[in-house]
């Protein structure tokens, strides 16, 4: 490869089906790996956490962005992390948080996980670039 390889952290703050952010970010992510660069992590923040809901169920002729992203993350072994504070406020729950807060259900889609803003801080400190995908309202 002639040019230097970059490694990115992607931050998605727009929700699927109300913004274009997750779709644009996924297009960018595929382009990154196709060009020989790498994604360190994908961090879902604010409204972006809705992307990790296992319960979103769009009509069959529309793309399921949760599955499409899940496929990318698994195929390229990229961690997909939803911010815990954003997630809990918006009802995105993993089994550990379900138990801790005594909630009736959990709904975090594989392979996403829930963690703190420290994951984003690590991206800022270590990735060559941090790219933000906003809802743009």
């Amino acid at each position, binding site marked *: 490869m002639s040019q230097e390889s970059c490694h990115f952290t992607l931050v998605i703050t727009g929700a699927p089906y109300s913004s274009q952010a997750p779709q644009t970010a996924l297009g960018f992510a595929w382009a990154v790996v196709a060009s020989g660069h790498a994604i360190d992590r994908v961090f879902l923040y604010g409204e972006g956490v809705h992307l990790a809901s296992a319960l979103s169920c769009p009509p069959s002729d529309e793309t399921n962005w949760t599955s499409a992203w899940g496929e990318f993350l698994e195929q390229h072994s990229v961690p997909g992390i939803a911010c815990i504070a954003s997630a809990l406020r918006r009802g995105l729950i993993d089994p550990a948080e379900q138990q801790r807060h005594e909630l009736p259900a959990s709904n975090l889609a594989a392979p996403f996980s829930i963690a703190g803003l420290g994951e984003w801080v690590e991206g*800022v400190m270590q990735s060559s670039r*941090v790219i933000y995908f906003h809802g743009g309202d």
Partner: protein
Amino acid sequence: MQTLIIIDRPPYGSWSGRESLDMAFSLAAFDQPVSLLFVGEGVLWLNKGQDATGIAQKSVERNLKAAAMFGIESLMADQSACQRFSLTGQTLIDGVETVENLRATLRRYDHVVFPG
């Protein structure tokens, strides 16, 4: 790595500003240098004497007053936006630096975040 987080929306109407502030506090907690810049309607965050009890929210003024204590390096505001909203020495919360040249300010940072 110097990070600047920009807030361009007024407080209370949306949650995005609070989440931007959380990003700043989080960097500071990891000893990463971070400053906040308020532009446009975002300067209303800096209005002195806010009381948000009527809308069942916590005042953001209290969060901002704690910013220095938690390691946020500076609170800056676009001077022309402050003029537009009549924010002066008396109506601005303490410890805010007003800046005239936004371009020069942005250039001082390695990482600029518009949390959206």
